[in-house]
């Protein structure tokens, strides 16, 4: 145990598990009414995993159709519903819930708190989600097609020309937004009010910091999205014309509103990932995170800049040159704080004492491939070149590089990193490594060729393509199937760990791990810290990062 951190958690067994009545009804009641942060975290992670497999299957359908030119498996309209649903579910149903799940599990433990600040609200914000996704998926059974206008649902394709199921999508988005807002309020309240005595804001773990900033981003943007879809709804049914030129509205206004939400949204998806990486790299490098303060400032700077770059999604929609210039510069500027983060991570592992356990492997893959995605992002910021890249597979390659090895990989890394703590058992390292290599290699086989397809002129969201694009589409499809199925290994590994198949985990689990959560037993007690641990100023703790002190066998 760290000599500088004194924790006085209760090891008494009076609260070592959830209260559960016998039988199936007891099981249902426990999970439906639970207000425990760990239970709710588990629920979030479960729904994210289910959605991940579902939206992943949709991606495989898309890739199958694109394996060869010509109409093969699915009709063009169904193809469009697949791209739409894949995007919507991956964004709202996978990446957002998975990080909320991680926040639920980790933030109270990292802060030395017993639970989240608002447990009942927490229950509600989770249980809204299954309803939202049921409504969203029910659109497949509504006559006249499920949503088929892309996850960006641009007007007027989604308003005047949208199928009847659009209203269901709008309703689903309202509920998801509500869930995100409630979750964010809870996270902010927890972070601001539940820290262990003595822990100042600038002493919080990076994962907590990134979530604090993310939560504020969510609070600011989800209401705008809710407003936007409400305008869609009134345009469709109540005679308003926000987005209809006929009544004095403007379809471009929709894009402004959507991207005012949408651009910060991509940082909502990636900032918690930054936090996870900032936890994992120091642990397996056995070296303190480099430039903690700058990491916090950079995260805040990215969040701030994310509000003033949204027009870069709309350069081809006819933006006056002055505006194009301003938004090009502000977009390029994001490269500075993002660069700071990358450089600090590299400096963290530089001269460390590195080992390559599965979480570390995924974190390193994140460093390489997220940077690649950042590079293509920088290229996309250049307005004249963007005229050629916009709405091509180059963009598809770009955002899959930042989201898959970015957000998804860091979530996977986080699960491998913390699952021994959660379950008290180690996962199977061999299977973890197999999962890593299969998914990393296949990911590049899938998405790297898309850069070339885009540059060669293949537009995105087309169900059929010209013959010259065949070879790279075939490569991408093969990669996608390997990538998809590699995650079954992950699923199997998780299930085995939860069932207690691995060897027992120690308190600290990882040799180089630091923070309150590692002072609790594995698995931790049901209510993490009933008596808050005392956080001692870490002035001298940098010396304490000498690993030899922390061996706990």
């Amino acid at each position: 145990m760290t000599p500088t951190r004194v924790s006085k958690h209760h090891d008494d067994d009076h609260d070592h598990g959830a209260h559960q009545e016998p039988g199936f009804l007891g099981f249902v009641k426990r999970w439906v009414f639970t207000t425990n942060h760990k239970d709710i975290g588990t629920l979030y992670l479960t729904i994210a995993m289910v959605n991940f497999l579902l939206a992943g299957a949709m991606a495989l359908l898309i890739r199958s159709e694109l394996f060869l030119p010509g109409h093969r498996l699915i009709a063009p309209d169904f193809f469009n519903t697949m791209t739409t649903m894949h995007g919507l579910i991956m964004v709202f149903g996978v990446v957002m819930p998975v990080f909320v799940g991680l926040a639920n599990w980790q933030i109270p433990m990292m802060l030395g708190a017993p639970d989240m600040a608002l447990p009942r609200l927490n229950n509600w914000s989770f249980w809204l989600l299954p309803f939202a996704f049921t409504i969203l998926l029910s659109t497949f059974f509504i006559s006249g097609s499920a949503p088929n206008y892309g996850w960006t649902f641009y007007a007027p394709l989604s308003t005047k020309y949208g199928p009847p199921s659009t209203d269901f999508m709008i309703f689903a988005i309202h509920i998801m937004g509500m869930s995100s807002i409630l979750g964010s309020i809870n996270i902010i309240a927890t972070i601001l009010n539940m820290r262990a005595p003595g822990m100042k804001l600038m002493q919080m773990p990076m994962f907590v910091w990134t979530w604090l900033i993310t939560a504020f981003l969510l609070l600011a943007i989800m209401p705008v999205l809710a407003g936007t879809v409400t305008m869609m709804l009134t345009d469709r049914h109540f005679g308003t014309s926000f987005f209809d030129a006929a009544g004095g509205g403007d379809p471009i206004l929709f894009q402004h509103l959507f991207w005012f939400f949408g651009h910060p949204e991509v940082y909502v998806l990636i900032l918690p990932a930054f936090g996870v990486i900032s936890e994992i790299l120091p642990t397996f490098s056995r070296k303190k995170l480099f430039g903690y303060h700058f990491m916090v400032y950079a995260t805040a700077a990215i969040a701030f800049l994310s509000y003033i770059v949204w027009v870069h999604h709309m350069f081809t929609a006819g933006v006056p040159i002055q505006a194009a210039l301003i938004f090009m510069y502000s977009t390029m500027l994001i490269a500075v704080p993002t660069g700071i983060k990358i450089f600090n991570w590299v400096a963290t592992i530089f001269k460390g004492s590195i080992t390559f356990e599965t979480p570390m492997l995924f974190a390193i893959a994140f460093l390489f491939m997220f940077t690649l995605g950042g590079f293509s992002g920088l290229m996309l910021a250049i307005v004249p070149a963007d005229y050629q890249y916009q709405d091509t597979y180059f963009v598809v390659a770009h955002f899959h590089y930042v989201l898959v090895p970015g957000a998804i990989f860091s979530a996977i890394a986080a699960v491998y990193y913390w699952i021994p703590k959660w379950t008290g058992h180690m996962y199977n390292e061999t299977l973890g490594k197999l999962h890593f290599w299969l998914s990393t290699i296949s990911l590049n086989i899938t998405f790297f060729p898309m850069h070339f397809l885009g540059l060669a002129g293949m537009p995105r969201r087309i169900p059929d393509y010209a013959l010259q694009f065949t070879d790279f589409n075939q490569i991408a499809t093969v990669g996608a199937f390997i990538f998809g199925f590699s995650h079954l290994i992950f699923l199997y590994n998780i299930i085995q760990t939860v069932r207690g198949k691995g060897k027992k985990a120690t308190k600290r689990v990882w040799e180089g791990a630091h923070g309150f959560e590692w002072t609790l037993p594995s698995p931790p007690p049901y209510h993490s810290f009933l008596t808050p641990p005392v956080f001692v100023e870490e002035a001298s703790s940098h010396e304490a990062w000498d690993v030899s002190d922390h061996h706990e066998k």
Partner: protein
Amino acid sequence: MHTIIRKCCRWMSWMLLLCGVGSAFASKYNMPVGVTPISREIYTLHMTIFWIVVAIGILVFGVLIYALINHRKSQGHVAAKFHSSLKVELIWTIIPFLILIAMAIPATRVLMLMEDDSDADLNIKITGYQWKWKYDYLDENISFFSNLATTQDQIQGKAPKGENYLLEVDKPIVVPTHKKIRFLVTANDVIHSWWVPELGVKRDAIPGFIHEAWAKIEKPGTYRGQCAELCGVGHGFMPIVVVALDEPDYKKWVAEQKGVALKQANALEENKPLTKAELMEAGQKVYGATCTVCHQATGMGMPPAFPALKGSKIVTGDVAKQLSIVLHGVKGTAMQAFGEQLTDKDIAAVVTYQRNSWGNDDQAKFGKAAGGLVQPSEVAAARKASSN
């Protein structure tokens, strides 16, 4: 220190080799250089930024890989204690900032070039439709729709796919070389995007709004592009073909077009009754070009989005109802109004074709209204008749 440098050099040479291979293969998979001054500027800009990014990548990944190889615990490396340095942080804040400025300067210059506002030699209005393009030559009084020419048989895999599969149209837009062409882009229904990579032009077509772009093509040739903004089920099936001709050839084309327009106008005047064979033959053509994307060659459609026409209550029922739908479309569905884009004869033919195909003319099964011929004059009457 010496070994570090040597290792770095080795990595660099590997990277350079990779880049060499890359550029050889780039000719096919890179952005096209194009045939306009702007497209060439964009290409140069693209490559400049690309190489800057590659250089940064080599540097960052180089350090990263070096650390991963040399600072492993298994190598007995003990972790250093440093964890912050204001100097280093400032360096890697300021240097990237300077690199960005270096990138922004050429980008701004090219963007300014694109804003050229000198007078154009030729103005062409481009209107995006679900799922075709319409071109209006403002100075010449030429106007036509440009549809996908690839047959459904090719798409369905019943015929071998041609060289320009999905990138061919029935009537390309023809333009002169070495002239400044101004494109005025708008849309009829939803947002489309007119994109021809080799001209370096991509402009969103937005209903109710007009936007412009321009190009000066330096080389005669055929340049192909596609719609770049998701616009519904036919989004992948509305290509753009630009044929650039030298001035004399272009003049000849313009003269021809004016002759064609005159002939078409005369033909429309006739509107005389047609035989069933004539209607069925013409109808099959129109059906193939206009209806099969959704309703399929088999008439089976793709329910529920695109209902089957085979045995459909509308196609086997009252002609007036069917004509009304073909002319005015169905709100809230993909069924658009074909009144403007098809002639009376086309509509008469395609409706006759639908009513007499796939067993739809079976009066025993569907009642007396099934089958029958529809003449262009009936379509003309239906157009005039109040939809009420």
